[in-house]
């Protein structure tokens, strides 16, 4: 499965968070590395969208759409820095 990057989910992120998110930096809860969301590794082909840390490959975000609602799991993200 080919990995893409956060640019590929810019529209979904904008929809969920209500603003442009790809230039927002997020800190990984696993290794502490900070990357802009556009730079993170993104897998689109699973049942949901998985976003992994560019440094440690830990899961930082999972997005799943269920009956028109997008559920976001952010447990792997320590915080955002605008």
């Amino acid at each position, binding site marked *: 499965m080919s990995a893409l990057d956060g*640019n590929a989910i*810019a529209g979904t992120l904008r929809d969920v968070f209500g603003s442009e998110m790809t230039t927002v930096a997020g800190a990984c809860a696993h290794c502490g590395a900070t990357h802009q969301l556009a730079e993170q590794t993104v897998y689109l082909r699973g049942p949901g969208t998985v976003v992994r840390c560019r440094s440690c490959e830990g899961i930082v975000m999972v997005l799943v759409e269920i009956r028109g609602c997008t559920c976001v799991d952010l447990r792997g993200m320590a915080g955002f820095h605008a």
Partner: protein
Amino acid sequence: MAGTALRGRLSWAQARVVELLDETEQVRSIVLEVPGWPGHRAGQHVDVRLTAEDGYQAQRSYSIASAPEDVDVVLTVERLDDGEVSPYLAGELRVGDELELRGPIGGYFVWEYTLGGPLLLVGGGSGIVPLRAMLRHHSAVRSSVPVRLLYSARTLGGVIYRDELERLGGGLIDVRITLTREHPDGWQGHTGRIDRSWLADASWPPEGRSLTYVCGPTGLVESVATALVELGHEPARIKTERFGPT
């Protein structure tokens, strides 16, 4: 349109196909009229949503190929034969048809003349699309930033925007094409993949703090970005966008 949108949310808009242009055998440009289009920045994309008669929806993200200064919004789509959306967009779509789209989207892989340069643009296959928007923007505002484009295609026939790139080349824009699979007799350009030695020769000196945009399949993007960092380029000044069959 912006006035009726919810706070920060993007609404889906109806776009009408006004022209279709075959760029290569597999690639087509779709010229769209989008009422209320708020304008975009070079490098941004849109989401396109298709709805089947039974209500099934498929959504894909496509880079905008036109410059902010162009009148219409242009998408350039490569037909992937096992794809779900691209065979329709690059094959069955007709002038007068309507598409649902939302955008512009993205703020990371964006170049505006105010960001300066020198600019290094590296593209593979249809990764040229957002770079073409940047080149058109550069020309439209008569930017004085020197630009070098390194573009990798499999064959000469697969070079997207070939005529336009030939016209743009020269002066401030230096266009260099490499053909990876086959090349015609007498081909004067580069052959083979974009590798570290070509990048060492063709990139700007790192001390000039050039700004780099790399777009293409994941493998190309990663090898080019890694090589540029090894050559001394600042990682924060290398912007990447990966695409793949989805």
